[in-house]
């Protein structure tokens, strides 16, 4: 049996599945039940300053994007940080941590961007005996207008400054939670590292409008006929999150900086992918909000079975294993020549590959008499669109042309040598380099 125990920044948890700071972690009641249900850790719903707490809207705060059968693909929200008093949250955290010493408990914090505010709150958080803090620099709505959340997260200098304050006034791990609402995620990550943060976690939600009501022309969720941009999360944002995690994992300036992967984790497989790209653990919000706490059971069992199958005894055996394979486009092997192949026995003759290739790709699929579809190697550029749109798994595959054969599209002999754009004759830079 694979060992799922996780050690992230020295914080131990029975498994790498943490609940992200959000409604599932809003109060003692939920958090106790989450631990009982099997979650390894919890990042408490973001705490704000002392004093009257923020208020949330009293109408709908979530919007949704559905796939087939009302499957939730993405949710957006216009919720703010915790709307309960700071003292109440801190007391509850202390009680929970005392009762669950082996589970991770992280405090998420968002206070104004001045040293005093942080200096005031950090000792009080430390008193709860929680395992670390996460700086919420991510919320794209509501708080950012007040100069917090993503308003900080979008300015690397502020990130660095606040991280530094936290390391100064708090002696346990500091995680900086990054917003994806930025052009290049490496800058805020570098800033966090430079400020002394122990780790980054990402992504927070993506600025979004999920839909527009075409009767009253209000964005959804609609509050009295008006809407505000919200934060998008769930399976739909996973590809964005994976890329950002990978960018940080392979950036020479941040390489080795621990990462907590967040964004659309719904199954064990999603978690394994984040971890393969360098995340030490994962955080989950939407999947729990959609299906309840019990989904962690599938995640644990799935990850454990996969690790057994692959022979990984501990999480560190596969964390980061995909990072070396993420490279820049210019280093991709241009001598890797493939052609689409259609398995005629598996083909159900829907013609989608044909429509896709004929109308929008390279006119490389023939439709013969009797709805027989065949790839014309002389036109196939191996774009993969037919594979993507074919409703039958493994019906169309990409087959590599063996070295020595001639690609009928280019007339060139396929070579098994690695050659990329940097040395390609069409590359003006390459030509210059040769001169």
């Amino acid at each position, binding site marked *: 049996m694979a060992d799922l125990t996780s050690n992230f920044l020295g914080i131990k948890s029975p498994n790498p599945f943490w609940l992200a700071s959000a409604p599932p972690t809003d109060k003692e009641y939920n958090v106790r039940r989450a631990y009982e249900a099997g979650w390894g850790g919890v990042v408490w719903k973001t705490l704000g300053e002392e004093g009257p707490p923020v208020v949330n809207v009293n109408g709908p705060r979530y919007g949704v994007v559905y796939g087939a*059968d*009302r499957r939730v693909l993405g949710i957006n929200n216009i919720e703010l940080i915790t709307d309960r008093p700071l003292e109440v949250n801190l007391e509850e955290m202390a009680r929970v941590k005392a009762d669950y010493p082996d589970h991770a408990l992280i405090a998420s914090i968002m206070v104004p961007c001045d040293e005093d505010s942080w200096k005031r709150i950090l000792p009080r958080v430390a008193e709860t005996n929680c395992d670390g803090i996460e700086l919420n620099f991510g919320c794209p709505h509501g708080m950012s207008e007040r100069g917090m959340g993503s308003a900080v997260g979008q300015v690397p200098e502020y990130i660095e400054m606040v991280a530094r304050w936290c390391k100064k006034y708090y002696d346990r791990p500091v995680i900086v939670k990054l917003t994806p609402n930025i052009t290049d995620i490496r800058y805020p990550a570098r800033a966090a590292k430079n400020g002394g943060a122990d780790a980054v976690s990402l992504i927070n939600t993506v600025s979004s409008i999920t839909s527009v009501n075409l009767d009253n022309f209000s964005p959804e969720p609609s509050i009295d006929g008006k809407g505000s941009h919200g934060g998008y999360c769930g399976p739909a944002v996973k590809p964005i999150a994976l890329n950002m995690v990978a960018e940080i994992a392979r950036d020479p300036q941040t390489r080795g900086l621990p990462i907590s992967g967040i964004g659309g984790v719904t199954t064990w497989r999603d978690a394994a992918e984040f971890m393969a790209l360098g995340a030490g653990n994962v955080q989950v919000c939407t999947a729990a909000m959609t299906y309840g706490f019990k989904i962690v059971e599938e995640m644990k069992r799935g990850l454990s079975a996969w690790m057994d199958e692959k022979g990984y005894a501990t999480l560190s055996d596969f964390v980061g294993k995909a990072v070396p394979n993420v490279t820049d486009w210019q280093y991709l092997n241009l001598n890797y020549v493939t052609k689409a192949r259609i398995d005629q026995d598996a083909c159900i*003759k829907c*013609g989608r590959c044909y429509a896709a290739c004929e109308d929008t790709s390279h006119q490389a699929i023939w439709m013969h008499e009797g*709805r027989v579809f065949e790839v014309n190697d002389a036109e196939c550029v191996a774009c993969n669109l037919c594979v993507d749109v074919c409703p039958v798994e493994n019906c169309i595959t990409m087959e590599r042309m063996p070295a020595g054969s001639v690609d009928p599209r280019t007339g060139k002999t396929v070579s098994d040598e690695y050659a990329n754009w940097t040395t390609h004759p069409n590359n003006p830079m390459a030509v210059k380099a040769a001169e």
Partner: protein
Amino acid sequence: MTSPFTPGIASGRLDAETLARNFSDLHPAYDPHEAAVAADRCYFCHDAPCITACPTDIDIPLFIRQIASGMPEAAARTILEQNILGGMCARVCPTETLCEEACVREAAEGKPVEIGRLQRYATDSLMARQGHPFTRAPETGRHVAVVGAGPAGLACAHRLAMKGHTVTIYEARPKAGGLNEYGIAAYKSTDDFAAREVDWLLGIGGITIEYGKALGRDITLDGLRGTHDAVFLGIGLGAVNALEAEGADKDGVGDAVDFIAILRQAEDKAALPVGRNVVVIGGGMTAIDAAVQSKLLGAENVTVAYRRGADRMGASQFERDLATSKGVRILTDVVPKAVHGNGAAREIELEYTAEGPDGLKGTGETLRLPADQVLRAIGQVLDPVDGLTLDGRKIAVTGAGRTFLPGVWAGGDCTPGEDLTVVAVAEGRDAAEDIHATLTGMVS
């Protein structure tokens, strides 16, 4: 109080509640979520095989996508542009041998996209919420006679009216709809759908129906040709094949189509007499429908007796499975030899058959089944119309339903081709287009 075990032919074998349940919708309507899930299964195939398999060429992937995107009424328009009786076809088409058989998901997983039920969802939505969706072109001053208000005649009349022609339908019966009204199994067209659909269809305007007017009795083909610019015949198959068996004239022996017509028109199904032991002779849709409905009325034993093997039956596998699921026994490779009984039928004697080098032959071995009621369903045939060339036992046509008489078109069951509602609609529509082209001088 009678029961399924009451001897002879009797009414009221089942209570009202059971009867209501028995004759409720065979394929209940989808609710919006079911429709969305079902619609989502469609792959939007290129040059979709389901379209090719639909006799009226409905753009199935398009209308299903319209349902998926929340526009069932627009989807209905896509359907009705090709098939004005899309509502009835959604209920009665043997989809398992048409569009759904061709659906790629049938090949892939034996579970096609439920095109028929989706079509019903769309057409029901439109018919429930809107008036007639099409408008007429300006009046052309041309007047076309349509004989028969069945699917073929109605489809032809509608398309002609839409093109601006004036149409008079001459219908022998007191109601329109043809077999939609008198023939289709009751559980396929519930809540008086056939009549409602006719009313809705006539909403286009420009169509008058003259009831009780039979060609050959009240009107003549020559007369119609003299007073109209064109004539379309959609008279279906008015006669039935005779049963050549000893004792076939006994009480209790009748035509399945008459039995069904009476059932379809009955106000109160409890008042309908049905035998305790019913034997239906035949192997087509009519035989199955008569057998199933006898059973649903409360007959104790119902047998379909077909002269060849099951694979040769006209009724599809789905229809046969439906019958057996209701408790009907299907007996194959038997022909009726005699009906026994003293004045009224009591027993039927059947002889086994075998397919030999010179056709089907009796083997000499017989069996007897109790039979209070024997229903003939051995095929309907054309009631001949003077002056028309025949092709076999149907009206000969070329192209889009042109008969060999100038100015006379025909379509539906009375012409060669499969006897299906959807085929009748396609032929009526295509003949209308040809009539229109002819009348407006686009073709001659």
